[in-house]
């Protein structure tokens, strides 16, 4: 964190719709990621974490658009980069893996070719050479007998294998950063751990930073050094993972932590339901007045209903929380 960060997002705003129907789906989101760092973005479905990732990739599509703020990658302001500049960044400097590896891979194309495309696109290789490199990539993500697997189509592979292929694609050109959007949500629990370990290990070896997006605070805290918790388009708490677990400050973060299932909790406390945060995430067009979490907050006070909380620095300035009562 000492010198220039690899990625600096500042005051990011993402609009949905246009004209009178325009609403900010993401607002005032700022965070930075250092080289080789692991950073997690956590929140419920619809909180804006995935579109934040897409905006970094420059892949927002109608009805979404970048409404303001800056995104700086390695000193280069990419929020105003041209389409051609963004293309040379995508895949080459930022790789991305998606939630559902079945649909994220082209069903009519052998996986080897889908990996080889990266070398053809970014390294100017011919297909033959690129195919040889694809075998190497598959070997790196520990797919058995990669020479044969490159000819397989996605439907011939298991979910875990497909996600390995996705990782191979995303890391093919040794990017500076890997964005992993719910990389394990669609996988079996046993496979999840393998995929997470693989991702962490490969990124550590290549010095690739990870921006991990998940609804699973437990998983993110396990992988990432720092975590930002998003709610209704805003970051409500951003700190080192260890601090978040030790002493969550925002009521929403506390709610998320309380809703994690714990082994042995039942035997200790008798039969007990998992905790939940009551209510649902508000619609983008109907964010409540004051603090956006107030309708669901258990620690709500009068000021929460009228005034939007500002951010408060925590942990000597490296963390922050957005709550009146924190």
């Amino acid at each position, binding site marked *: 964190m000492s010198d220039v960060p690899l990625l600096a997002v500042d005051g990011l705003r993402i609009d949905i719709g246009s004209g009178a129907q325009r609403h900010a789906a993401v607002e005032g989101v700022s965070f930075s990621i250092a080289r080789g760092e692991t950073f997690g973005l956590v929140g419920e479905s619809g909180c804006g974490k995935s579109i934040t990732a897409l905006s970094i*990739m420059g*892949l927002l599509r109608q009805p979404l658009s970048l409404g303001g703020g800056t995104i700086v990658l390695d000193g280069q302001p990419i929020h105003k980069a041209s389409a051609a500049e*963004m*293309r*040379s*960044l*995508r*895949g*080459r400097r930022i*790789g*991305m893996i*998606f939630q*559902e590896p079945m*649909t*994220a*891979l*082209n*069903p*009519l*194309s052998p996986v080897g070719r889908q990996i080889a*495309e*990266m070398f053809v*696109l*970014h390294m100017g290789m011919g297909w033959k050479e690129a195919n040889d490199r694809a075998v190497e990539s598959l070997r790196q993500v520990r797919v058995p007998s990669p020479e044969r697997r490159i000819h397989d*189509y996605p*439907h011939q592979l298991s979910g875990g294998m497909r996600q390995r292929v*996705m990782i191979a*694609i995303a890391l093919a050109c040794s990017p500076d950063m890997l964005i992993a959007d719910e990389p394990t949500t669609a996988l079996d629990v046993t496979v999840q751990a393998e995929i997470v370990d693989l991702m962490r290990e490969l990124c550590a070896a290549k010095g690739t930073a990870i921006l991990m997006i998940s609804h699973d605070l437990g998983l993110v805290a396990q992988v990432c050094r720092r975590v930002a918790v998003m709610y209704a388009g805003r970051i409500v708490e951003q700190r080192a993972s260890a601090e978040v677990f030790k002493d969550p400050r925002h009521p929403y973060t506390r709610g998320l932590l309380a809703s994690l299932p714990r082994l042995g909790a039942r035997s200790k406390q008798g039969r007990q339901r998992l905790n939940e945060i009551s209510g649902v995430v508000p619609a983008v067009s109907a964010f409540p007045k004051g603090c956006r979490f107030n309708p669901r907050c258990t620690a709500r006070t009068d000021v929460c209903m009228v005034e939007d909380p500002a951010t408060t620095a925590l942990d000597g300035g490296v963390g922050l929380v957005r709550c009146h009562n924190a």
Partner: protein
Amino acid sequence: MLTVLVRRLANVIPTLFAIVAVVFLLFSVLPGSFISAMNEDGRGMIDPAVMERMRKEMGLDDPLIERFGKYVGHLAIGDLGNSFRTKEPVTKLIGDRLWPSLKLVLAAMLFAIVIGVPLGFIAALKPGSVTDATSMVVAISGLSLPKFWLGLMLMYLFALQLKLLPSFGYGDGGLTHLTLPAIALGVSPMALLARTTRAAVLDVLNADFVRTARSKGMSEPRVVTWHVMRNALVLVITTIGLQFGSLMGQAVVVEKLFAWPGVGSLLVDSVFQRDVPAVQGCILLIVLFFLAINTLIDLAYVAIDPRIRYA
């Protein structure tokens, strides 16, 4: 691939048998016969005794089962019977008409594919644009215009007014005579193809793997050629197959209008004269054509989509 072909062909035979039976039965329950049609044709009254003799000769009085059995038996050895009208074998009648018919259908389909698929593609790449709106208006109009009206308009414009092309007839069977009927026949499959292609491409453009392709840093033309086209093709092929297969049947109107000596006009003439063997032959051919195209389409699926194995 071979097993797929064999399986498909095994399916074709029962289908064919069912069609043959239905057509045969239909004509046996319809009122009137070749002979009564001759009477109505204004050739005056025929001596009832002569009529009786003709019915006997043509075997029209035999029991239904017997006639059907005989027909199927002959069919199995490739004999479609003799035409009531010309006394020639139906196989020869149809044989003479087959090539013009195929030529018309192929030309119409070629027109439909060459114009319709790119039109739909361009429309899908810029949804909501002027190009999109224009091409879809063209497509809707193409779908809603009746073929005979369209044919007449084409004749009026290109033959009568511009004097560029002959208005009807087969001529030497060359392109000048083929163009107008082919367009008249091809416009509605063209329109349908344009719409299907547009929908298919839009569908694929929203697929997750296209987002992956973009996240790899691919330019939009590359995304389309490497990942969108082939996937959209699977859907487009279905429409091509259905349209292509039914085109020989649809050609009836156009062939009649343009006096095109194809199977379609033979069918119409034969129906009016209750020339049952010829009608059955024509319908059989139209059905066979449909089944053949469908089989080809199934093979095309296997070639394009690795997930499809008719195991």
